[in-house]
């Protein structure tokens, strides 16, 4: 080794980082992973997969009754037909809001979530309070998100598993007749597809 010039200051590495490096080292060494492939995976989830995918599914369902039927029939296939496939999206179920029903999704066990259409879950979805309260007090959770639904609305909470992932199809906002798929997709928020929000009103789109 070369002589050390800087005897006082080495580089900083946290214990967590060291544990992750150890995993990467041993898995590379044993041929389980390709370090270059890791970067591709990370880039995909940071930049390519996110709630805009789900928003396209919802907008298409609002516009095209046959697509809406296909989504009810077999959501996994209907979603894959738009090119959204992959991990944690193998068995999708679409939950349509409307007719006095509001659907809301949680994973009480950990954080199962439909990645191909929504990306990775937001921080609050993974938190203990949400996981516990979504089932016990869905109206309270909705109130925290600023959503008040009529007394008579039937709120249904769906617990995701490793096998089944849900996508909520929010109600199409009034005043959007004649809107294009792209315009409609801009009204579909991530939260509206988890059921902790509603689709935006046309005024909010800033169009």
């Amino acid at each position, binding site marked *: 080794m070369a002589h*050390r*010039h*800087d005897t006082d200051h*080495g*580089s*900083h*590495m*946290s*214990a*967590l*980082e*060291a*544990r*992750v*490096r*150890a*995993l*990467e*080292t*041993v*898995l590379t*060494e*044993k041929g*389980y*992973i*390709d370090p270059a*492939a*890791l*970067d591709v*995976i*990370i880039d995909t*989830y*940071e930049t390519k997969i*996110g*709630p*805009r995918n789900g*928003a396209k599914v919802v907008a298409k369902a609002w516009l095209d009754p046959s697509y809406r039927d296909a989504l009810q029939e077999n959501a996994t296939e209907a979603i894959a037909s738009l090119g959204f496939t992959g*991990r*944690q999206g*193998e068995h999708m179920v679409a939950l349509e809001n409307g007719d006095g029903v509001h659907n809301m999704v949680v994973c009480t*066990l*950990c*954080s199962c979530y439909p990645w191909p259409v929504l*990306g*990775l879950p*937001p*921080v*609050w979805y*993974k*938190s*203990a*309070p949400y996981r516990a309260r979504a089932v016990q007090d869905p109206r309270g959770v909705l109130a925290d998100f600023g959503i008040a639904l009529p007394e008579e609305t039937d709120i249904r909470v769906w617990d995701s*598993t*490793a*096998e089944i992932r849900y996508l909520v199809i929010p109600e199409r906002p009034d005043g959007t007749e004649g809107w294009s798929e792209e315009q409609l997709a*801009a009204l579909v*928020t*991530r*939260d509206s597809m988890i059921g902790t929000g509603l689709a*935006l009103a046309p005024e909010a789109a800033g169009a």
Partner: protein
Amino acid sequence: MSQRDAERVFAAPWEAKVFALQQSLLDAGVFSATEWAERLGAEIAKDDCRDDAEGTAYFRYWLKALECLIAEKGVASADNLTGLSADWLAAAARTPHGKPIELTLK
């Protein structure tokens, strides 16, 4: 999309790395999606009181779940991983600031 949708997927590079490692092992068939969900759920449940509302502990549970499953599947023992972590910390300590930290396996 609303502002809230724009939040970052990973809070630190090590979180992204843990995520990518888990995906690769799932693809390689080292464990199944169900095994993963059960293990991660168990780790989260164990430490539940420390899982704050911000969810910052989340990827630490991922790391623990991954280390456990890898040991369980006989890929690398806990001792092996602990030793390698120590090697990485030592490598960092002897690397001048700003230089890439490297570890040569013995």
